[in-house]
């Protein structure tokens, strides 16, 4: 190439036609021109790759340009009136954000902005026009609300198709809560896709009430999704808000919202879709999707799904493990039609069902025995029957005190917990086949189970404990303790006859505000604790105004402390609240379903909505109320509400309010209830 450059003969001729004075040199003129030409080419080539512009400035400009492109579709929402407290969260009065989703006046926003139930909603556009808005419908699965204003020249955002989502791509979170002129922005990346069971993408841009309901855009100004607070662990109204500004934020893809927009416009409230099937949960590393339970009258029941079926396909997507199923169904709504393929024995069956929004409350089955808490003789395995409750399925089947239940169906059982688990897998009107040992003989009895009755046994013989040779080293009697690091201070009573070879019930007594009532509690309960095998625990609130929500975790710590040092029966942990402490006690019981089996409310009606009956966590309620007290009606209503949800709930009615803190009759009834809390 260089050789060719040197032979520019045509130029030479042109050059020599110029006047002599203009010729820069003589014989090597061509060479000079060649040099010039080369120089020109090289310089242009060199400067063609520009000096790298300030990268930071370029990024800043790109962000500002993307925001400008999306600006017209981000609107401000203000509300008037409404409650100031939702659950334990103070609602703000400030403005929130929405995204225009159709030009004829539809705006989508986060449901978070309307939790306070405002009386009036006003939407302000970026051009300062204000409109009264009406709430059209909500999506309870993705926590979105659709609004309508009387405008028809709005600018909706373009949605990014899911095929273009990339983990790591830049995102900008927009809100319009500080300044009407400019949206407030936060910059981040897409952290993950298909979070919260397929409902949202995750970003590390800061998301908070400052931009809930706003848009998450990409650098081209198109919308990836609408920002909402969500949590994979909880489903409540304020779930996920505690993660604000943490680097974990969620946005529901706009393409998903557009897909259900016609349903929302038609004022349909969208709810998460339920099948009515329970699976064996092996935790996060789950196994195959094998059906453990089918809720009666549920879509799965009607479609003919049976226990032990394995789900292998959902809507043409293969399901290798339970998590796959949860991801596929978790993002669906009630009313959606699902095509399943299940494997039963050697066949694969196709089933179709329509998901529902509400299932019948789970009903526990009842056998009617109380397990013996004394340890078995060495070499024996099974559950010894302490008492057979009168008129129960066990009584009718011929089970007797002293029988050693060894098998339920084909499954061998080694403990009362295992017996309970096996019985709970059977429908409340189906049969349980028990294999038990009585006086060297093996018997097989069939019991027809019934729904778990609400009424506890009215009388119960106390359990005689088998004495143990070495007395315990643990502290018994009444003592005080305080947990370190700002933990709670509490008193406890461990009966003097405590021994480590059996497990003991735990009654957590939450005193009403102001007075810990320690002396009265000790006097009323110490005898029954010794008789019925109960350890009494009395945390102290510390504040004269009563219990604070932050103390829930601290009470849990105190219980853990006791569990570390004493043999506590997990089937007999109950919490008791009286009057002012009733709401704290019930919130505690519902929060820690894996800990508490029972709740005792003394003259304290339930004020929070009760949870759903959960087959993994049996739960019972007992209330004590005076017939002439103003809350008696509410207490009766509380018991009714719990029974409706298939919780065993019972009311002990006193003729009039007790003068003393605890009346002897109430205490003995409660003690029997506590003793029988582990009945199967």
């Amino acid at each position: 190439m260089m050789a060719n450059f040197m032979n520019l003969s045509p130029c030479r001729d042109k050059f020599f036609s110029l006047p002599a004075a203009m010729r820069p040199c003589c014989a090597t003129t061509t060479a000079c021109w060649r040099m010039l030409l080369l120089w020109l080419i090289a310089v242009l080539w060199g400067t063609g790759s520009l000096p790298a512009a300030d990268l930071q400035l370029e990024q800043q400009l790109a962000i500002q340009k993307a925001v400008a492109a999306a600006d017209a579709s981000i609107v401000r929402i203000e509300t008037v009136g409404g409650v100031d407290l939702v659950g334990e969260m103070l609602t703000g009065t400030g403005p929130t954000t929405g995204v225009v989703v159709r030009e004829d006046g539809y705006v989508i926003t986060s449901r978070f902005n309307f939790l306070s139930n405002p009386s009036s909603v006003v939407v302000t556009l970026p051009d300062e026009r204000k409109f009264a808005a009406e709430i059209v419908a909500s999506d309870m699965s993705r926590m979105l609300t659709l609004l309508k204003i009387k405008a028809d020249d709005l600018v909706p955002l373009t949605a990014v198709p899911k095929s273009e989502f990339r983990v790591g791509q830049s995102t900008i979170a927009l809100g319009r809560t500080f300044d009407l002129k400019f949206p407030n922005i936060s910059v981040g990346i897409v952290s993950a896709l298909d979070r919260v069971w397929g409902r949202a993408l995750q970003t590390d841009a800061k998301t908070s009430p400052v931009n809930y309901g706003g848009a998450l855009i990409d650098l081209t100004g198109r919308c990836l999704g609408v920002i909402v607070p969500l949590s994979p662990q909880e489903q409540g109204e304020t779930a996920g808000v505690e993660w604000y500004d943490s680097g974990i934020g969620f946005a529901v893809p706009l393409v998903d919202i557009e897909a259900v927009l016609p349903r929302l416009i038609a004022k349909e409230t969208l709810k998460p879709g339920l099948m009515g099937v329970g699976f064996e949960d092996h935790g996060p590393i789950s196994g195959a999707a094998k059906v453990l339970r089918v809720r009666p009258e549920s879509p799965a029941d009607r479609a003919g799904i049976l226990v032990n079926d394995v789900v292998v396909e959902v809507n043409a997507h293969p399901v290798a493990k339970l998590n796959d199923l949860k991801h596929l169904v978790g993002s669906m709504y009630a009313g959606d039609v699902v095509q399943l393929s299940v494997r039963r024995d050697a066949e694969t069956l196709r089933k179709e069902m329509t998901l529902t929004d509400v299932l019948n409350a789970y009903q526990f089955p009842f056998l009617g025995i109380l397990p013996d808490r004394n340890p078995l003789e060495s070499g024996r395995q099974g559950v010894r029957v302490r008492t057979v409750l009168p008129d129960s399925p066990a009584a009718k089947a011929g089970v007797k005190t002293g029988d050693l239940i060894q098998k339920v169906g084909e499954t061998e059982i080694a403990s009362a917990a295992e017996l309970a688990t096996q019985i709970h897998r059977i429908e409340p009107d189906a049969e349980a086949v028990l294999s038990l040992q009585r006086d060297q003989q093996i018997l097989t009895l069939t019991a027809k189970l019934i729904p778990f009755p609400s009424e506890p046994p009215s009388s119960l013989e106390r359990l005689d404990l088998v004495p143990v040779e070495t007395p315990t080293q643990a502290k018994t009697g009444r003592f005080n303790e305080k947990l370190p690091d700002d933990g709670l201070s509490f008193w406890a009573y461990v009966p003097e006859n405590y021994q480590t070879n059996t497990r003991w019930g735990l009654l957590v007594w939450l005193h009403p505000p102001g007075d810990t009532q320690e002396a009265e509690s000790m006097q009323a309960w110490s005898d029954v604790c010794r008789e019925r095998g109960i350890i009494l625990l009395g945390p102290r609130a510390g504040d004269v105004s009563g219990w604070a929500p932050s103390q829930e975790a601290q009470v849990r710590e105190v219980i853990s402390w006791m569990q570390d040092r004493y043999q506590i029966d997990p089937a007999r942990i109950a919490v008791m609240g009286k009057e002012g402490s009733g709401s704290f006690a019930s919130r505690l019981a519902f929060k820690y379903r894996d800990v508490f089996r029972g709740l005792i409310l003394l003259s304290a009606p339930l004020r929070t909505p009760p949870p759903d009956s959960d087959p993994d966590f049996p739960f019972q309620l007992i209330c004590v109320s005076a017939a002439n007290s103003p809350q008696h009606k509410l207490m009766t209503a509380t018991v009714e509400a719990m029974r409706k949800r298939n919780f065993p709930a019972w009311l002990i009615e006193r003729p009039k309010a007790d003068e003393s803190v605890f009346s002897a009759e109430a205490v003995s009834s409660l003690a029997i209830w506590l003793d029988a809390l582990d009945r199967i």
Partner: protein
Amino acid sequence: MIGPRVCILWVSVHQVLTSLSRKGLCRKFSIGLLVVCAGLLCCGSVQAQSADIHGEDIHDAIQHVQQRMVKLYGAGGLKNLAGYGTGFLVSPDGHIATVWSHLLDADTVAVVLPDGRRMFGRMVGTDSKKDIAILKIDAVDLPYFDLSHAASAGPGASVLAFSNMFKVAVGDEPVTVTHGVISAKTDLSARRGRYQAPYTGPVYILDAVTNNPGAEGGVLTTYDGKLLAMLGRQVRSDQNNVWLNYAVPISELRTGIEDIIAGRLHRTDPLTAGTKPAGDGFKGLDFGLVLVPDVVFRTPVYIETVVEGSQADKMGLKPDDLIVFANGELVPSIRNFEIVLQSLSPGDDLQLVVRRESELISVTFQVPRQKR
């Protein structure tokens, strides 16, 4: 970049060598061209270098700022109040600007300079409205920020924040630098528990984590080290209870700082105690409006009745109308509306936006000359 340079060099040298043997104009021309080529080469190199070591520029900018930051240690250390903070030098005589926080309640405040020297600073002045305090140390010729060269920025601008949050920097270690983006510019309305933030002027809301113990009094700069703002306290927004990351623009603080340094005192706090509203205390009735009883914490401003013949009647307001905006601001409750009315003066306009069913109606009242 290497290719063209080598090419030019080779060609130029080759041609010059061949033409140097000639005489006269040709030689001068060649040498001139060689000089120009060499010049361009150097330029290209410099440009190339600055692109390759872009990181060097920001490093210089950061060093420039770090030399002007100080670490403060004072009162605190109990419960949730940190006993440490940050400040920045604002004069050649050792004046340090910082947030007027609990840190300065101690008799002595220890100031650690960028070179690790530890000195005691004394407070020479405060401005409670701007929430700033000026300390002075006995040191001269320290590098300082010239407040007249401070910059300003808008939403989307990339920024750097410098502070000793969590007292990570000890001794002569430089304070922590973090990056972020300006999220918005707005007026501050925030509190922490019952403590209301005294400054209510314009602030930058930041998309950066600056709301940490020890960050108060730090600085916000552009990516090339120009001073933008002073980092603020840990407070929550009044509007939605979230913790705010904010910084106060230097343009708001400059006059106050310069006055304190110059010793010019002027009273910014009102002499009279209490919060007497500035206006003449008008009521809804003065306009012919009877509102619903204020019973719940946030009673919406519904009109109960309209007095016949009054301004409200003439404007066409009716019972059950909901007053939503007053003079451009949302009125979420009757309490807020009363505050707005109380601060009106005769001759003012009162512009109300009222909701009737699904329509928003705007009416403007003339505030009457005298109260009834």
